[in-house]
C-alpha cells in the first residue's frame, strides 16, 4: 500500500490527509512536532483571552483520526533524504514514504535585532509561543508593560490578547499608519483611532533598534531607532510577519527560495515530493496573487488540490479571486477582489471611500479609471457576501452596478440598518460633481 507522509498538521496538511482518505485507501501518516491533534492556529488568541479552551480549537474529536485511519505521529523531522525516501527525526527515528507532502507552515520573522533571542521575547505563531506568552505575561502584575514590534494582523491580535488581561501595551509600527501598505488611508486611519480607543500606546513610524537585557539575560526594555527612546517592559512580542519554516530542507536537494518552490501542480523539483500551504512558493502565481500566501484558505485549497493529484486526478492549484478577512479588535474586515494600499497600487485603480460619520464602519471600492470595471471592495464593520462578489468579479460588473446593487451583497445579521443608501448617495453625488 502506498504510504503518503505529510509533514505538518495545520490546515493544509490535514485537509490533504482528509481528502486523500475520501478518495483512496492509501496509508496516511501526518507528522507534527507542535501538537498531536489538528487545531486551528487562528484561534490560539482566544485561548489566552479566555474565550475558549485549547480543546475548542480542535475541529475534530480525537476519535476522528482513528476512525478515518489517519496515523498521527509526534516528532520533529530533522532531515529529508529524497534518494531513499526517508525522513530522519531529531529523536533518531526514521520513516520511509512513497509520497511526501511538505506542509510545515511558517515561523515568525526576526530581522537580526540585537536581543531578539533573549528570554521574554517571542513571536505569536505556535502553540508553544502561546504557552510562552502565558508564562511571560499572565497578568499585569507580572508583566507591567509589553512591547509589540510589527504592525500587521498578528501584531494587533497580540495587542488585543494582552489588553484582555489589562496589560499595558506599546505597539511599534514601522509604517506611518497601521497596515497602510495594504489598507487605503481612510481605513488605516480608522484602525489607528480604534487601536488608541483600546488604550494601546500606538507608536507609528517607529522601528525597533534593539532589545536590552537585564542582569539575568531577560529582556528589560526596547529602544526605538528613530528617537532613541527606551521603553521598559517585561515582554516583547515580535510580529513583523512570517516566513516559510524550511530550514530543515536545506540539504535535501529540494529546491527552495523563500519557500519550497512548486509548480502549479504543487510539485517540487523532486518527484513524489509536494509542498502546500504557507511554506509553498508558487513559481507562477495566478490572479494577481503573491508567490507565498500565508492565508488560512489558500492552505486549505492547496490541501484539497494536492489530494486530487495524489489520488490520481492531476489537478492544478487555481485559487479564484482574492478574498480575505480579519478582525481588528472590535472591527471586522472583509475584502473581495483587489483594493490596494500604498503597496503596488496600479495607475488605473481608482477608489471610492465612504465612512460612517460616527460609527466604525467604512467601505472602499476600487474600479478601473477608464473602463469603470469593479475591481474589489474592502469593508469594515459591514459584512458582505462572498458568493455575490465572486459572481460580480467574474461577470466584470461596473462600479455603478455594484454600488446600485450593494444591498444584495449585504451579510449583516437581521435587523441591521444597512448603510447602502448612504453609500449610494455619496457615490452618485461624487460622480456628478466630477462630471461637472
Amino acid at each position: 500500500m502506498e504510504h503518503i507522509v505529510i509533514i505538518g498538521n495545520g490546515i493544509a496538511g490535514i485537509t490533504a490527509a482528509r481528502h486523500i482518505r475520501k478518495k483512496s485507501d492509501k496509508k496516511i501518516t501526518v507528522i507534527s512536532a507542535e501538537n498531536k491533534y489538528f487545531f486551528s492556529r487562528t484561534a490560539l488568541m482566544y485561548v489566552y483571552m479566555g474565550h475558549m479552551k485549547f480543546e475548542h480549537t480542535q475541529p475534530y474529536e480525537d476519535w476522528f483520526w482513528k476512525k478515518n485511519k489517519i496515523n498521527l505521529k509526534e516528532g520533529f523531522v530533522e532531515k529529508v533524504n529524497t534518494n531513499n525516501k526517508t525522513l530522519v527525526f531529531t529523536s533518531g527515528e526514521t520513516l520511509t514514504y512513497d509520497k511526501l507532502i511538505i506542509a510545515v507552515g511558517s515561523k515568525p520573522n526576526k530581522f537580526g535585532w540585537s536581543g531578539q533571542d533573549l528570554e521574554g521575547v517571542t513571536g505569536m505563531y505556535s502553540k508553544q509561543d502561546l504557552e510562552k506568552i502565558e508564562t511571560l505575561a499572565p497578568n499585569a502584575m507580572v508583566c507591567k508593560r509589553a512591547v509589540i514590534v510589527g504592525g500587521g494582523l498578528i501584531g494587533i491580535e497580540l495587542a488585543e490578547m494582552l489588553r484582555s488581561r489589562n496589560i499595558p501595551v506599546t505597539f511599534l509600527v514601522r509604517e506611518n499608519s497601521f497596515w497602510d501598505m495594504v489598507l487605503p488611508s481612510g481605513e488605516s486611519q480608522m484602525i489607528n483611532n480604534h487601536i488608541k480607543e483600546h488604550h494601546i500606546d500606538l507608536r507609528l513610524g517607529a522601528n525597533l533598534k534593539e532589545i536590552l537585557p537585564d542582569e539575568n539575560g531577560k529582556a528589560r526594555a526596547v529602544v526605538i531607532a528613530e528617537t532613541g527612546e527606551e521603553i521598559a517592559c517585561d515582554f516583547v512580542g515580535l510580529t513583523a510577519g512570517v516566513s516559510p519554516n524550511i530550514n530543515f530542507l536545506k540539504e535535501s536537494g529540494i529546491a527552495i527560495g523563500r519557500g519550497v518552490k512548486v509548480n502549479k501542480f504543487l510539485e517540487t523539483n523532486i518527484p513524489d515530493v509536494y509542498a502546500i500551504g504557507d511554506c509553498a512558493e508558487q513559481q507562477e502565481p495566478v490572479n494577481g496573487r503573491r508567490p507565498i500566501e500565508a492565508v488560512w484558505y489558500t492552505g486549505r485549497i492547496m490541501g484539497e488540490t494536492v489530494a486530487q493529484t495524489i489520488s490520481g486526478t492531476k489537478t492544478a492549484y487555481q485559487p479564484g479571486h482574492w478574498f480575505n478577512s480579519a478582525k481588528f479588535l472590535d472591527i471586522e474586515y472583509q475584502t473581495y477582489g483587489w483594493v490596494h494600499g500604498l503597496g503596488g497600487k496600479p495607475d488605473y485603480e481608482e477608489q471610492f471611500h465612504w465612512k460612517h460619520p460616527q460609527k466604525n464602519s467604512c467601505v472602499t471600492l476600487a474600479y478601473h479609471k477608464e473602463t469603470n470595471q469593479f475591481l474589489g471592495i474592502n469593508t469594515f464593520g459591514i459584512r458582505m457576501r462572498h458568493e455575490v462578489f465572486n459572481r460580480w468579479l467574474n461577470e466584470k460588473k461596473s462600479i455603478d452596478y455594484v454600488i446600485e446593487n450593494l444591498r444584495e451583497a449585504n451579510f449583516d445579521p437581521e435587523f441591521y440598518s444597512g448603510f447602502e443608501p448612504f453609500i449610494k448617495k455619496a457615490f452618485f453625488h461624487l460622480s456628478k460633481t466630477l462630471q461637472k
Partner: protein
Amino acid sequence: MNKIEHNMSVTAGYFPVLSAKQKISLLIGISGLFLLLLSLFNIEMPNTMSWLIISLLMLIAGISWYGFESYKGLPKGIKNNGVWFRSLTNKGVLGWITAVFLTLFYIVLYFYPQYLGFQESGDNTGLIALFDPLSKLLNGNPASQWFVYGTLYTIAIFSFGIKFIFKYRHNRYEVIRTISVMFFQTAFAFLIPEIMARLNSTLPYTDLKNLWPLAYYNFEQYRVDGYLNSGTIGLALLIFGLVATFIITPILTYKYGKRWYCSWVCGCGGLAETAGDPFRHLSSKKRSAWKLERWLIHAVLVFVVLMTSAVVYSYLGEDSSKYWLTKDTFLIGVALFITIVFALFFIFKRNELKKDARYGAIGAFVIIVGLLLLHFSTGNTLFFIPAETLKKAYGFLIGAIFSGVIGVGFYPLLGSRAWCRFGCPMAAMMGIQQRLFSKFRITTNGGQCISCGNCSTYCEMGIDVRAYAQKGQNIVRASCVGCGICSAVCPRGVLKLENGSPENRINSNDILLGNEIDLLSLTTKK
C-alpha cells in the same frame, strides 16, 4: 519572576477587577435577595408590601446596574474575555455553589413548598406570605409557591435581560430578540394570567404562550372543565390552545424556524437567554451528546403524546352527553392524525432522514399507534397503565425533575439549554419540522471560515457549528433555537440567520468558494 506569580498564570491569570459601582450594585442586589430569604424565618416585617417591593426593586436595580457597569465605557463588541477563567462560568467553586443552591431551591419549590411558607389551608407564612399582598393585588387571592416563583422568574428575565442588552448592544438582532422575551414573560406569563384570574375565577391559570406539549397539562380534565365552564372566553382560550399548537406553530416554524418560539417567546428560553447567558458555552459539543439528545428528546415527545392521549381519553365519556368527543372518536382521531403526519414525512422527506432517524420514527409510530390499536382489542385500560399514573410519572420526571431541577438548577454545569436540548417536547416537535419543512437556516459565507471554533463554543445547544461552516455548508439542525450568538461571535463574518427558499436549503454551496474548479464534485466522483 517569583513563584506565586507563575502559579497564578497557570490557574487564574485573569482577575476581573470590580469597580466601586459594581461593588455597590452587587451589594444592593444581594441585600435584596437577603431580605427575601430573611422572610423565611418568619420575622415580623412592619409592612409586608413595602418590604416586598423594596427587596424586589433592590434585586432588579442591583442586577441591571451591575450589568450596565460591566460593559459601560467599553467599545461595543464581543465581551467574552475570561469566560473560561472565572469560577462562576467555568464550573469552579462559585459555579458549583450556584448549581447546588438553584437545585435545592427547585427541589423545595416542587416537592416541599411548605418550607417556603406555603399553607394548603390557613394563612401563608414565610416567603410566600411576603408575596400575599402582591398576589392579592393582581389576582385577588393569597400567593402560592408558583406565584412567588413566577414573580422571581420574571424579575430574573427582566433584569438579566437588561444586562444582556448592554452586553450585545452592538447587535440589533440580539437587542430586539431580548426585548421580545422580556415582554412575553412580563405580559403573557406574569401579568395577563393573574389579571384574567381576577376577572374570571373559574378560568384556569392560562399563560397564552405556554403551548402544549411544553404545557403538558393543558388538556387535563380540571382545565378543560374550567374552560368549558367559563363561557365564551373559556371556550376561546381552549380553542386557542389547540390552534396555537396545531396551526399557528407549524406556520410560524415554517416561516422563521423554531426560533420564533424558543428564543423570542418561550419562558424557558427566555431565562436561558438572559440569566443563563453566562453559562451558554458549557453545553457539550461531543458527538455522543448529540446522539443522546436525539434519542432522549424524541422519547419525551412520544411520552407526552401517549400521556396526553391517555389523560384525555380517561375523562371523555362513552357517549356524547358531556363532551361532544367520545372516547372512541378521540382515539381514532389521534391514531389517524399521527398516521397522516407520519405518512407525509415518509413520502416526502424519507431521503433526508438518516438511518437512525428512520428507525426512531418508525419505532415511535409503531409504539403510539400500536398501543392505540391494542386498546380496541383489550378494552378499557389504555396502555395497560392507568392514565393517572402516566400523568404523575410525566409530571414528576419531566415536568419537575427534568425541566426544573436539572434544566435550571444545572445551568452552571450543563449550560443554559439542557432542558431545551434534551427534554422539551415542544422543541422536539418544532425541531423535526425545522429540519424538514422550514425556510430557516444559518447561511455560511463562502470560503471565509477559519475554523476558529467560537461559533461551536458559544452554541448553547451544543451544535458543532464550525463543522458545517468550514465546509461551506448551511446549518440546518433540528435543535437550533436561532439565538444568533454564533453569528455574533464569528470574527470573520461567516454566519447569518436567514429565512429563504426551502430549495437547496441544506447544500446551497457545494463547493467552498475561492477555488476555480469544483473540487467537491471531483471528490464525490471517486
